[in-house]
């Protein structure tokens, strides 16, 4: 019959602030197999450890759960202490109620419940733990890295630099992975080839690294320290030692085009007829000309009030510009929006003159009145409000445009009245355009 002791640590305020340690201790005391359950300010301190060792001896414990920090932190501490007083160290487990619980949550009630769950799971584990004795087995000092993308390459180089042999396996004919397909990397916009290519050369030059490209893992057996892995090298019918990478065989291969033609699903097939017609009218005159993308996107936005995703896909197909580039352009420029906008668009000019004369008060007032932040649209799709770069009507500052009508020397009171005006006009005569 298991006799388990549970010790809950406060870790000062680290745990106690978000987890009710006493409540967890009380709960753990009720669990099957638990004979003693205590909480203490710092379990890793000398007095804390003494509480545990005293209890192991006095209560004849067969297993221990310490609910505190991550096992990476103190598992070794507690196991060593337990072993000193005669408990098999492998019957001691830690429940991580700090990194996995108190530090990660903001609701004390829910965090306490979660801590209880974590403790209960560990109690169940300890109930099933068997006393273990460490043994020594020989280990092959060789590492396999699977996948030779930038991460795999760097891992292989690091391990090799530490003096171990590395087997690097890559499924594709060439190493490099996604990194080889990128131009620049986030967030520093460094040239990705400049990062990748020297490392590609390094793995070839290292005598510690054995590279298998165009190979896949069939089977992984064994255990930590002594894995047995079956690697299947795919047939490539090329003598790599002689190959210069000229690419002629690739170009002349008779079966290449038969197998590699991807099935392209055109967005045109799912566009409704109206949208297709509108977009064709915009795109046809632009086809084949340089520098038309901005203008095309502006026309699309004029037509739809925003840039619908399918419209952008269609633009991409028709102009033969990658979708990613179009998306990037659409996100970069303030004038474009990917979300549908409200019926009425209110813009508050953010020019210097307008700022000096109180534009920020107008922004605050709109936020209060409409209950949205700038750039957002009201739920009923009536109003969108945007802050906009200088409209060049500085002499009339502060300036607000409502549906492209300029309103100068704007005040909070005037603005709210204008809003009311639009709402009542919409209510009485929905077909009438909002007055300027």
């Amino acid at each position, binding site marked *: 019959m298991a006799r388990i002791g549970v010790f809950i640590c406060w870790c000062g305020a680290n745990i106690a602030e978000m987890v009710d340690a006493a409540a967890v201790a009380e709960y753990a005391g009720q669990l099957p197999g638990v004979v003693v359950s205590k909480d203490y300010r710092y379990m890793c301190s000398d007095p804390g450890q003494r509480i545990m060792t005293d209890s192991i001896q006095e209560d004849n414990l067969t297993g221990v759960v310490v609910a505190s920090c991550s096992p990476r932190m103190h598992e070794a501490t507690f196991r060593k202490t337990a072993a000193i007083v005669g408990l098999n160290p492998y019957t001691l487990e830690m429940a991580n109620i700090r990194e996995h619980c108190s530090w990660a949550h903001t609701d004390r009630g829910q965090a306490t419940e979660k801590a209880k769950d974590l403790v209960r799971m560990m109690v169940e584990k300890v109930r099933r733990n068997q006393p273990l004795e460490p043994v020594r087995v020989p280990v092959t000092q060789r590492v396999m890295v699977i996948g030779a993308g930038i991460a795999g390459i760097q891992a292989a180089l690091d391990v090799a630099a530490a003096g171990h042999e590395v087997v690097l396996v890559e499924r594709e004919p060439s190493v490099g992975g996604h990194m080889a397909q990128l131009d620049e990397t986030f967030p520093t916009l460094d040239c990705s080839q400049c990062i990748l290519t020297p490392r590609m050369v390094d793995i070839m030059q290292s005598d510690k690294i054995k590279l298998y490209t165009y190979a896949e893992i069939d089977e992984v057996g064994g255990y930590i320290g002594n894995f047995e892995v079956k690697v299947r090298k795919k047939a490539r019918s090329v003598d790599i030692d002689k190959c210069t990478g000229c690419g002629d065989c690739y170009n002349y291969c008779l079966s290449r085009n038969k197998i590699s033609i991807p099935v392209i699903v055109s967005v045109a097939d799912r566009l409704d007829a109206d949208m297709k017609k509108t977009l064709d009218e915009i795109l046809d005159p632009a086809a084949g000309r340089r520098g038309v993308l901005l203008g095309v996107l502006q026309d699309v936005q004029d037509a739809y009030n925003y840039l619908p995703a399918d419209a952008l896909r269609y633009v991409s197909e028709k102009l033969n510009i990658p979708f990613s580039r179009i998306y990037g352009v659409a996100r970069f420029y303030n004038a474009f929006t990917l979300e549908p906008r409200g019926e009425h668009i209110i813009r508050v000019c953010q020019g210097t003159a307008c700022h000096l004369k109180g534009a920020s008060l107008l922004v605050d007032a709109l936020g209060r009145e409409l209950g949205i932040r700038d750039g957002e649209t009201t739920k009923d799709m009536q109003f969108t409000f945007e802050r906009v770069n200088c409209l060049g009507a500085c002499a009339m500052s502060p300036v607000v445009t409502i549906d492209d009508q300029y309103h100068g020397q704007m005040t*909070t009171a005037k603005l709210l009245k204008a809003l009311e005006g639009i709402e009542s006009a919409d209510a009485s005569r929905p077909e009438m355009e909002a007055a300027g």
Partner: protein
Amino acid sequence: MTTLTRLDTVEAFGELREFLRLRQDPRQTVISVCGFTGCKVNGSDAVAEALKEEVRKQGRDDVPVKVTGCHGFCEKGPLVVILPQGIFYQKVGLKDVEAIVEKTVIGGEIIPSLLYTDPRTKEQYKLESEVPFYAKQERVVCRHSGKIDAARIEDYIAVGGYSSMVKVLTEMAPEEVIDEMKRSGLRGRGGAGFPTGKKWEFCRMAEGDEKFIVCNGDEGDPGAFMDGSIMDGHPHAVLEGMLIGAYAIGATHGYLYVRTEYPLAIRSLTRALEQAHDYGLLGENILGTGFSFDLELTRGAGAFVCGEETALMASIEGNIGSPRQRPPFPAVSGLWGKPTNINNVETWANVPVIIDRGAEWFASIGTEGSKGTKVFSLVGKVNNTGLVEVPMGMTLREIVYDIGGGIQKGRKLKAVQTGGPSGGCIPESLMDLRVDFDELVKAGGMMGSGGLIVMDERTCMVDVARYFLEFLTDESCGKCNPCREGVQQMHNILERICAGEGKDDDIDILLELAEYVKDSSLCALGGTAPNPVLSTIKHFRDEYEAHIRDHKCPGGVCKALIQYGINADACKGCERCAKECPQDAITGEKKQPHTLDREKCIKCGVCFETCPFDAVYTE
């Protein structure tokens, strides 16, 4: 009305010009209505329509009503000028239309109530040229302001438009044109002030099977609208300048890059392009001279960084507008890798008049290092806001006080901000500074594109710096680290200071960060981004210290550091503020001084802006 036929020869153009010139009677009465944004906001469109209707009704439909480009005095719009005398009516409403036609146009009388009265001297002025706002200006780029209808190419040709182009095409070699520009001393009006002639020469000498020229109309500086008004009111001058430039450089194709926030400028330029095409002044074999040049318009899409030339070119090419390292300069490798010359709107608009009147004449205006005039948008807390054109070298004091009529509500001048987010704040003590490219830089400012933003004592300089950095964090393209991260960090510190949470060493950290960002950013956006911070710390360090140490905002702007209150002596109990207050925080009996409950107050500022007696104060 001439029929729009393509002109195939230089002679045909000359005949058309003569015809148009002779048809113009200098004694003819013309009603000129300003049609630019400022006046439009105040209803000039309706006034112009009503005037057209009224002249017809009163049987004088021989009197043309012209909607013209910006007259400049936006503060007093809508503006109506009766030519040829130049009678200047301001703040004209629909109710005045009948009287203008009946009394002034037909009767030749002046309507005193519509004249401009100087608020300081109470003197009334009858003619546009006498009004102090105009009297001190010297109009070169805007010389046709208010006189020609920007929508009619014929008006422009009649006053000598496109004649400079003809002169260049028929009498001058490209090298001579470049030489003329160099001798004129014209420097780029976009801000940096690079000599235009030299720039053209670089591009002319660059190797390339195809060359481009670009007009940078991406006037992104907040508080500047000169280029917008030039494109709207003088589109053909820009086109003609580009044609001359294209000939000198050897370009066959050009782009006008105009920011999308300027719908009027886009409309005006689009119309001008069509007209120039129809007359054969653009396109293949212009006027039979063998010179071909075509131009198209690209709308920007709301990205400040696209004012930077390499970002602008990326944008025209249809890419994300992020700048790149220079060299290679655009003159060597620009649009699609071809030699490209980029000039600002105002620079291009200066070109025809230099060719027309000669480099020596142009060089006689201005200072030693900066020739010609500069158009400024004079805005902010100044009485006469609007568009002004003055010779280089005029002092800031003359611009702010003589032309601008001093500070609103008789308050004290604190600083003038020049050069947009890249520029700096010039304090009151330096108002006798002569405005040209070099002097402004010495004072920690920058010419920039020409926004002059006047700040009074109720402006918080820390808030101004915070405002510009907020703008720049939004507009940083994110390509290089110093600008993306550094400007953001500086902005965070300024936000904190404005929220009353500044720390003692914040000023030092700002200065240190500023140096890093300045030295290591990729393009001018980042390189000049710290300027608003540096110049405000330099001249207004005490305001920073007041925020950090005393938790006070001397300008009464930073919300977290101010409280609103009502001055019982000034309050007349009109109840207007109480009615507008969204929190019902203001109470009081009618005609008795009101009180403001600070517990309820959310500092929205409505009472402050509503009070007609200046009784609401901040502390």
